[in-house]
Each structure stands twice: as C-alpha cells, then as structure tokens.
C-alpha cells in the first residue's frame, strides 16, 4: 500500500505572510515514505475536491510534514480555518517528485511566490552546494527566507518592485549562477518556469520543473489534470498528479 488516507492532527499552525499559512501535520505513515517534490491531497470540509499542496518539509523522526499554502480560494480558506490541534483529512504522499543527485553537486534552486515551499527540502539536501533564487511580488510577500538560509545554501531574494533585495526577475541572477551547475530545480508560475527552462537549456544545464493543474483524484486514475508533454518524440498528455508534478523541462510542451 503506497498511499494512505486519514484524518491527522494539525500540530502547529502559523501565518508567514498575508493569507500564507504554514501547517505542521502529524502523519507518521505518510511522512515515512514522502519524498522531495511530492504533494499531499487535502480535503477542505464541505467540499468535493481535494486541494493538492506540495510538501515543504519532511521530518521522518517526528513523523511530521510541513505544508505552506496561499488561502486564496474558498477551499484553501476553509483549510486555513482548521484550528491548531484540529483534524485534517489527507491523502498522500502523491506524485513524482524531484530527482536528486549526490549532495556534493552544485545546483541552482529557483522558486517564485507560492512555488517556493516545495523547494526547501532540496536546499536541505544540497546545503552549501545549492544556490537558491527566490522571487516574490514585494517585500511583504517574502516567505521562508530564513529557512532557506539555515540550510547553508546561498540565498538570493528578488522582488518585482524592488522593495526587498534584488530588484527584478529570478532569471537575472540565474544566468550568473548557471555556470558549473549540474541541475536547475524549479517551481513557480508558468511564465517563470518557461523562462527558467529556456535559460537552463540554452546553457546545457538539465532543468526540472514542478507544474500545477486543476486536479481530481490525485493518484492518476481520473485523468483530469492533463498537461502536454513529449516523450520519445511523441506528443501526448501527461498527468500532473502521477507523471508529475515534477517534469524534466525538455518533456514539457509550454
């Protein structure tokens, strides 16, 4: 049995920025088998569809998973209303995550907005061999900066409006950091991922991207979260929940 469904305890709840919630869930059976880049499928009470939320931290010893999400819709708002100590209905761990190499390899990790949380376990793996470039709208939207710095990675924060750190897009610092990198690992909005993939490919650095799509079952059965990919020269629909969320950027048809 690879997947588990159950109601688990929300051990710790805090907000990181406006509408951005940080949950620590006690779910030892799921935490034990979870991998970097996978997600959990969480059911807001009174809704029919679960919400896929990527895993931000895996603590196998304590049996906990951390998720960070933006309460921007009715479903995620209902999740945000769950009190600390309350129960949360989780299916997981799901999806094909990031493919990691030896931690001695130099990598560049690039995230944007609410795409940043699933990258934290990658920085924890590569530590000081990782350069992390995080993009946000403005200073008040910056999240997890300290968590990334604690991993020993070099952290560069960019803001669209220049209200914090580097003024501009993540692709600016990325082009400076690509030389000698063995991989680029990224998650964020589609236009950003597309630009990162292009830049990485031009520089001959393999790039992995974590995608998002409206999802149903989360396990690859209902086939709703289709995205266009090319495999062995053939164009076809892949499914974000099972073939992804993480794809080799060369497979993705943008």
């Amino acid at each position, binding site marked *: *049995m690879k*997947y588990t469904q159950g109601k688990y305890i929300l051990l710790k709840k805090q907000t990181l920025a406006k509408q951005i919630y940080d949950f620590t869930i006690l779910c030892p059976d799921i935490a034990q088998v979870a991998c970097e880049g996978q997600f959990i499928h969480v059911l807001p009470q009174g809704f*029919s569809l679960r919400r896929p939320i990527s895993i931000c931290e895996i603590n196998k010893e304590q049996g906990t998973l951390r998720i960070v999400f933006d309460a921007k819709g009715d*479903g995620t708002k209902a999740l945000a209303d769950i009190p600390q100590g309350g129960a949360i209905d989780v*299916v997981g761990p799901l999806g094909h995550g990031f493919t990691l190499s030896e931690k001695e390899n130099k990598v560049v990790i690039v995230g944007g907005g609410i795409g940043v949380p699933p990258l934290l376990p990658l920085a924890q793996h590569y530590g000081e061999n990782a350069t992390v470039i995080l993009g946000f709208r403005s200073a008040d939207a910056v999240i997890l900066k300290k968590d990334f710095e604690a991993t020993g990675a070099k952290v560069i924060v960019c803001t669209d409006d220049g209200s914090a750190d580097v003024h501009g897009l993540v692709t600016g610092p990325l082009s400076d950091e690509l030389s000698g990198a063995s991989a680029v690992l990224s998650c964020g909005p589609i236009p950003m991922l597309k630009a990162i993939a292009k830049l990485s490919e031009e520089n001959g650095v393999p790039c992995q991207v974590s995608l998002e799509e409206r999802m*149903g079952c989360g*396990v690859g059965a209902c086939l*709703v979260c*289709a995205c266009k990919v090319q495999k062995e020269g053939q164009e076809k629909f892949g499914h974000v929940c099972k073939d992804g969320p993480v794809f080799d950027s060369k497979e993705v048809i943008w």
Partner: protein
Amino acid sequence: MADLSVKVAGVDFKNPVIPASGVFGYGREYEEFYPLSKLGGIATKGTTGQLRTGNLSPRIAETPMGMLNSVGLQNPGIDKFIETELPNLMTKDTVIIANIAGSTPEECAEVAAKLDNTDVHMIELNISCPNVKQGGAAFGVSCEGASAVTSLVRKSTKKPLIVKLSPNVTDIASIAKAVEAEGADAVSLINTLLGMRIDIKTRRPVLRNNCGGMSGPAIFPVAVRMVWQVANAVNIPVIGMGGISSGRDAIEMMMAGASAVQVGAAIITNPFAPINIIDEMNEFLDENKIKSVSEIIGTVQPW
C-alpha cells in the same frame, strides 16, 4: 453481518458496490489503498476503438456538492486495454465490467466484438457520447439512437450487456424500454448531467471544453428519481448511480429499484468511499435486522 451479495443479469457480485467508469482507471492506483477484491465489481475507464488523447485542461471544476468534468474519453484503445490492462484485472477476484464507447454504432460493436473473446464478465455500453454520423448528438438522447447502437452491439457479443443511460433526456424510461427491447441485459444510470461554470473575472468557461458532465452529491435526488422511474418501466435489472457518497445513499438507491450501485465522484473526494459504503450498508442492514441486501431492492412504497 448481512448477506451483501446480489445477482445482476446472471452475474454474481459479492456486494453491490462498484466504482463507476472513469474515476477508477483500471484499478491500479486504488490497489495502493486497498485490495480490489473487497469491491463488488469494477467498471473500467471507457474504452474506444482507437486511442483517444482527450480534451485540453482544465478538465475539472468544482460545483456546490459536486463537480464537472470533461476528460474526453482519454483511453489507449481497445487492443491495448485487452493486452495490458484486462489480464491484470481478471486476477483481482471481483466482477470486471468493461465500459465501452465509440463515435459510431459500428465502432461500439467492433469494441464489443473484441471483448467477446476475452474473459471479461460484463460489458457496459456508454450511449452518452456524440454520434458523429448523427451530427454529434449523443446516441442516448433518442429512442432511435439508443436502439440502433444497442441492437448492433447486442449482435456482436454474448457477454451480459449493460447499457448506461444519459439523464440529459425528456423521458429516460422510454429510452430504457427501447434498449431493453433490443436485448440489453441491464441498464445503468445516470451518467453525468451536462453543466457549465464560468469564471466571472475572465468571462471564460472554467472547463476548456466549455461544458462538462456534472456529478457528485448534488445530483443524487435526480438519480434516485430516474432509477425509480426506469425500474418501474423495465423488467431487466437496474444499476443505480449518481451522487452516491454513503451507505445510506446506496440503500436509498436500491430501495428506488437498483440491484447494484456504482460510485463515482465520491471516490475523488475520498478514495476509500466504496469501502466505507460497503461497511455502512452492512451496519444499516444489521441495525434493521435485514438478512440480505437483495431484500430491499425496489421496496420503496410510493404514496
């Protein structure tokens, strides 16, 4: 423990709970949650004559107490299904119902004929898909269309044949009678109700296909009504579905006249839905001292 076994069109089911076609793939994913042998049966993902890639995303939208989907019959085609999925399914100790579809009656018949040479237990014919020869209207929206496709499929297979009815019609009982007259061994209903959602900020439909099929608890009362009407109109067994999400819903559907039930959207909400439904049916029967679930079929006492 009550006796949950039922017989539908000569086929024995250990219990009346069947994951509906479309939500359950070919069972592989759900086997990672529980053994498939716990299920009464499995209706497999709709299979057509050739590979179909399906519609563009988004293919799903949430609705109050339900959802809309427009997958577009994505499937690898009948040959691949028979070669790579069916042999595995046949080892799972549960009734395997191959759901089939096509753009023409001939395509449906060809798919059924290929299944006739396999060990599959039953065939479920989806008549809600567009008939390209009839200007794209679904076979299932007229008695003539439903009769024509059922007749051709009936001639191409000896397997027990279930015809899955569309609710997007004026009088579903007359369609049921039409397919019964052409030799259907059972009917299953309801397929999804056509629906639409619009994103009011972008003024675009939420589904890339504009419209889609609505399912989930919101449609349950419509399904109960239609199952009741059809069960009163035909002499063949009825498999009830549409928004069933609890054991009580399943019991209600059987009292309306269903000999077995299918569960679709509820599995998206909770992968364990069919297992929970089986447990809850057992509890209800025990509490009410009903020895066998088949005793309750069609026992509603209308005013």
